[in-house]
């Protein structure tokens, strides 16, 4: 039931773009994206509820393809502060509001 994230790690230079993917084998009700800095708690970025929904703030956005059970997180013109591990959490249809996380994608942004 655990979602699969790719890539496992990505290294960028400041200003470059990145895409992180999350896919599930089960029908999804929602997809949640979190960023975690080393030694800190996961910080909520955004939640996507409906198929095709796209959300974003600043230069971080995400899409949700309900049919394919996939979500992608887009980081545009990356900043040093974007460095961290990005987790997608999925809420499966019919589940009891449980969020299951993928293994994470380690993003490193270098100057």
């Amino acid at each position, binding site marked *: 039931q*655990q979602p699969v994230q790719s890539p496992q790690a990505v290294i960028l230079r400041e200003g470059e773009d990145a895409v992180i993917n999350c896919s599930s084998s089960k029908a999804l009700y*929602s997809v*949640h994206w*979190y960023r*975690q800095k080393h030694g*800190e*708690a*996961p*910080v*909520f970025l955004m*939640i996507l*509820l409906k198929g095709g929904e796209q959300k974003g703030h600043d230069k971080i956005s995400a899409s949700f393809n309900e049919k394919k059970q996939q979500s992608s997180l887009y980081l545009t013109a990356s900043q040093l502060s974007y460095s961290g591990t990005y*987790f997608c*959490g999925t*809420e499966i249809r019919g*589940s*009891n*509001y*449980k*969020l*299951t*996380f*993928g*293994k*994470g994608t380690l993003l490193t942004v270098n100057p």
Partner: protein
Amino acid sequence: EPEVTQTPSHQVTQMGQEVILRCVPISNHLYFYWYRQILGQKVEFLVSFYNNEISEKSEIFDDQFSVERPDGSNFTLKIRSTKLEDSAMYFCASSDRIRSSGNTIYFGEGSWLTVV
């Protein structure tokens, strides 16, 4: 901004000892969770709690674990007889589960448990 608070931030305990991790969820939230993260690994679901009972638990949440809401504000995780492999960061989380706006789950800062 309201936040989930956890205590202690770090605890070292001897194998076999009992540990209680405490959490104060966001005040108007009714749904509570414990997650665990072993160093360098993903965040793993342990248990969810609503209306004074467990809603769902994972296979990790065996008989040595228990949760309780002893009063109107605290939510605790007890590990009865700690093992070395229980060493991890334990996150408490809460949500208001308003489905129409999405079940956003907010995490506390975590309690780092080291079993020696």
